[in-house]
């Protein structure tokens, strides 16, 4: 079972945060196919969040084929989300390590690196 957290200052809608956390948990192996997600009521009792938000996130995951709702027993993980396999992720992460080392050498601190990544993503989105 996983526990969700909520960052209310990120600008990312809460339902998307839940979707992302489930996907991340699957990618790093905290969640496996067959595992049960906490019920809507368990989630809201824990994080004090709107139940419609949780239900919406679960619906989204179901539409994406990642989880399935079984009537009367809960929501279960069906499969890993489409996307990079753990191996590919590992490779991407290694690529990043090189970049981070270079950035650190250039005197960038963590915050500046994050800001630069964010700005570059924004720029690329603008160009598309």
């Amino acid at each position, binding site marked *: 079972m996983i526990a969700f957290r*909520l960052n209310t200052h990120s600008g990312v809608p809460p339902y998307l945060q839940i979707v992302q956390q489930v996907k991340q948990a699957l990618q790093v192996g905290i969640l496996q196919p067959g595992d049960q997600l906490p019920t809507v009521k368990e989630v809201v009792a824990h994080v004090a*969040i709107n139940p419609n938000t949780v239900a919406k996130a679960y619906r989204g995951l179901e539409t994406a084929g990642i989880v399935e709702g079984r009537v009367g027993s809960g929501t279960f993980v069906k499969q890993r989300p489409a996307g990079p396999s753990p191996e590919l992720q590992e490779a991407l992460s290694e690529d990043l390590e090189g970049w981070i080392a270079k950035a650190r050498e250039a005197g960038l601190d963590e915050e500046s690196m994050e800001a630069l990544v964010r700005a570059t993503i924004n720029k690329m989105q603008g160009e598309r």
Partner: protein
Amino acid sequence: MEVAIQTKDLGKRYGSFWALENCDISVPEGSVSALVGPNGAGKSTLLNLLIGLSNASAGESQVLGRVPHQREDFLADIGYLAQEIPLYKSFSTHDHITMGKSLNKRFDEEFIRKRLTDLSIPLDKRVGKLSGGQRAQVALALALAKKPKLLLLDEPVAALDPLARHDFLSSLAQAVADGGLTVVMSSHLLADLERVSDHVIVLASGKTQLCDDIERVLKQHKLLVGPRSNTKELGDGLRVIHETHTAKQSTLLVRVDGKTKVPAAWQKHEPNIEEIILAYMGQGKDLNEGSAK
């Protein structure tokens, strides 16, 4: 989706002062709506109109498909928790349950006893001896025990410490998760809102500034940062809600309708709901200043 509350041009006048004016809101069934606005914006006035505690001076409202009225058949479906958490301090929680049972046709005694026991609230203690957080939980449980279809809360968490606030909102969210309940809650604590609400109503200067689904609101607004410039050049489809300028830079919170392109010179950011709400609250202020001139 069905609508729990619908108002049209709703207004309330005290003497020559309009506490609420041209208020148009629509609240979907099953939603949790945050009612926000500066002090004196008309939030309590609106809540009082919706439960028939006061009569409208203008316009109309439909609450659960009826015109609000202080009559049993209407009120049976409505829960209301006023700002001061109205409990009898010298009565025990048990006394309050007995009272709730006698005063309401429908009252789920089993639910409230279990709920309060789960929260470790002693039923035999005088309510005046409980902590502020416990009192708020008792009041909420009493309101929920009558199994309302609509629950209106006026600043329920304002006086609570952060832990008690979290527990209160968690109780509320669990009640909504059980289904069949629509909630409208006024609050100044914007940080809590994005968590527990999925709908937002912003009042300022007695007028509705915004009433919409929070997710849609987030999608429709952008924060633009760019070189100091005239906002008139932004083009059609962009409505500037709030703008600040320094000597070199302009920051705009805009509402984007449809697929309007943001000019390339501007850096585009996603504002959070707090920034958007503050911008709309500020709009009311500008209106006020305008009319005072």
